[in-house]
């Protein structure tokens, strides 16, 4: 069974093509600048070769058509015909309260997804365009939608409600949704596989730390809390996002700087976080370098970054009344040994004890990095959202038969 996984953004299309018999990636790549000047398709072949195709790609449909063409091309392709594509899995950002797991896409599902557009006006429309394109291009191939929000739908109401009038939740769906659900689900399940323990019986805290970051509390196989909220701005300090912020401060800034709500939103989404504090970069690697060279703002931003992570770990350990596993993933979580070391420093009282040697030597690899006698096991698990989407797609399309 071969499955194509698509992640359609506003002007990009990421794709991975899996052979599910051995769960290998036959091809992957990226269509950039869809509908813009200089659009191109980058293909990474299984043999490691990268090929770049330039040409006009006016919309998502022509981008996907291009992808399908490349996959079946004699020179660069990996399948003889489009009939070899058994199913297509789509990453969909927002499933609102309508989707608590991955689903086979039907017209009714598409209609429901359209209802969620208001909640993710930037992301859901391109996701839908991808679905529409596949429906037109290869109508007989089943499609599956895998939602970023679905895993967190198991949160209890006391974790997802804000302290605002209940009518606003009923009327507009204003509540915590959380994101990165596919990643939190993948790494928590994978960690239990690695340790050969029952996923349904653990208390797990997963830290997905990348340019966007979130933490989730997973109890008995279900997400019970997560740090991103109604939007991805809430929670941790991120590359350019502010994270937790007093609304009173937001209003004060709007008044003092005489800016409207859209500008304020851009300010807290694009000019805050690590970038806002350091004025150097939104990339943690640059900030780490600057800190090593003695830049005080960089040092400060790292302290803030790590501090917030520690607080959420404490919060979720309290909310679950315990913690068995702590997992680091995402670009930063997998590859920044100093972040992991600083986050776990002085958490011995809560049972977290990291092995400094393992934390360094096993950087970037799937591994256990806590001391043997640490009450809580600490792991690095590189995330693989595309594989998770492919697996869900395989499972759902096979069930359908």
């Amino acid at each position, binding site marked *: 069974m071969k499955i194509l996984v698509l992640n359609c953004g506003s002007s990009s299309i990421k794709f991975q093509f899996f052979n599910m018999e051995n769960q290998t990636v036959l091809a992957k790549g990226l269509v950039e600048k869809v509908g813009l000047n200089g659009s191109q398709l980058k293909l990474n072949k299984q043999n490691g070769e990268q090929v770049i195709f330039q040409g006009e790609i006016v919309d998502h449909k022509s981008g996907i058509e291009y992808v399908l063409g490349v996959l079946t091309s004699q020179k660069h392709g990996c399948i003889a015909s489009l009939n070899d594509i058994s199913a297509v899995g789509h990453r969909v950002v927002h499933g609102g309260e309508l989707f608590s797991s991955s689903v086979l896409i039907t017209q009714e599902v598409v209609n429901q997804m359209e209802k969620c557009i208001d909640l993710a006006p930037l992301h859901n429309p391109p996701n839908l365009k991808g679905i529409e394109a596949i429906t037109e291009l290869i109508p007989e191939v089943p499609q599956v939608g895998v939602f970023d929000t679905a895993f967190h739908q198991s949160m*209890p*109401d*006391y*974790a997802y*409600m*804000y*302290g*605002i*009038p*209940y009518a*606003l939740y009923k*009327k*507009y769906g*204003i509540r*915590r949704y959380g994101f990165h659900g596919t990643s939190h689900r993948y790494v928590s399940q994978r960690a239990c596989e690695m340790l050969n323990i029952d996923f349904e019986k653990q208390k797990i805290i997963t830290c997905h730390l990348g340019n966007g970051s979130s933490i989730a509390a997973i109890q008995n196989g279900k997400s019970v809390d997560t740090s991103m*909220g*109604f*939007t991805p*701005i*809430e929670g941790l300090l*991120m590359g350019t996002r*502010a*994270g*937790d*912020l*007093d*609304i*009173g*401060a*937001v*209003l*004060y*800034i709007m008044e003092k700087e005489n800016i409207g*709500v*859209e500008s304020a*939103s851009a300010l*807290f989404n694009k000019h*805050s976080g690590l970038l*806002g*504090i*350091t004025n150097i970069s939104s990339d943690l690697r640059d900030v780490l370098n600057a800190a090593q060279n003695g830049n005080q703002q960089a040092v*400060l931003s790292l*302290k*803030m970054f790590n*501090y917030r992570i*520690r*607080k*959420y770990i*404490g*919060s*979720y*350990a*309290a*909310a679950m*009344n*315990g913690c068995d596993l702590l997992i680091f993933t995402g670009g930063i979580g997998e590859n920044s040994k100093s972040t992991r070391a600083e986050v776990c420093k*002085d*958490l011995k*009282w*809560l049972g977290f004890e990291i092995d400094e040697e393992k934390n360094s030597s096993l950087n970037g690899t799937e591994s256990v990095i806590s001391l043997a006698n640490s009450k809580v096991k600490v792991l690095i698990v590189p995330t693989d959202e595309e594989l998770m989407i492919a697996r869900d797609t395989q499972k759902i399309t096979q069930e359908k038969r």
Partner: protein
Amino acid sequence: MIILVLNCGSSSIKYQLFNIDNNHQVLAKGQVDRIGINGSNIEQKVNGKEPIFIETKIDDHEQGIDLILKLLVDERHRPVLSINEIDAVGHRLVHGGEDFSESVIINQAVKDKIKELIDLAPLHNPANLMGIEAMERLLPGKPQVGVFDTAFHQTMPPKAFLYGIPYSFYKKHHIRRYGFHGTSHKFVAHKACEILGWDITKKKIITCHLGNGASITAVDGGKSIETSMGFTPNYGLVMGTRSGVVDPGIIEYMMKKEKLPLSDIVGLLNKKSGMFGLSDGLSSDMRDLADAMIAGNDDAARALNTYAHRVKHYIGAYAAELNGLDLVVMTGGIGENNWKVRELCLSNLEFLGITLDVEKNKGLYGTDASICSDCSRTQVMIVQTNEELVIASDTIKLLKR
């Protein structure tokens, strides 16, 4: 020595008259209400005597204070024979910004600073200033002392007090976490250690001030290292009518959906939210909600469970940062008197060493007491707060210097 303690709000003045030499005896206490509004009045209570209640026109703070001074020598109560017996006045001041980390004797420079900080506390600092200036005119030559709500929290490190927004907003507009209720947090932390015979400089303490406004503080060795209220008092916990933490992203969404101007959103988040909003308008009063929850009301249960969940988040977060926890203190109107809320907030926290004695806790109110079981690693206490007493004591201390 006789000390008058004043707490001037925007339309009210609370006061207490202390005889410090006689074991801090409260000679009289009372409240001026509805200043500048129809139905303005004053009520004074003296132990063992009929309260005095007068409804009369009170246009401003100076008239209010004048009335207080008259009632203090009223022959029906006569806590003092002449107002000249009053040795000094202590004021509760809300916002000391970054300029005041302890109580001060009020002089022109201090008044100027409080004036400079009006932007940060537009409702409170002007009223506080009116109280000070009225006293200068009515009791000329008597020393006055200011005790700030924010002062105790000035020991927070930058990683705890900064938000993830551009650093220039901190430099330019002083946007940071200040925290409030400092006088109460400090008092109950010290008082609990006194009761337990502990040296506060060696202890890790979390103080929960749960009243109509609510905040939690981490106290390490007697110093505040973080607190849940932020730039404004509408941050952190869910409160009576204040939302506490919300995703900043909801502002834009609410403005668009409800077509409300920003000022209405602010009003909504401060006055129609919190427990009142979460319970779908049932009540903002915890006693009503606790009774309703016990009787099986779902709206009350949702609101109280959300409230308790937030409290647990903060307890866990601060236990992580303290890397240990010796004591949790419950105080404030709700913390002292509502056993059901205490039970919801403190049960299932054994992982943090907290084992509540459910029976001991039940029905307990209006007393200082330990409410954990004998096996609890972390001590849990109810301590009645007394901010007025702290203000009186600080006033004496500064005068003796």
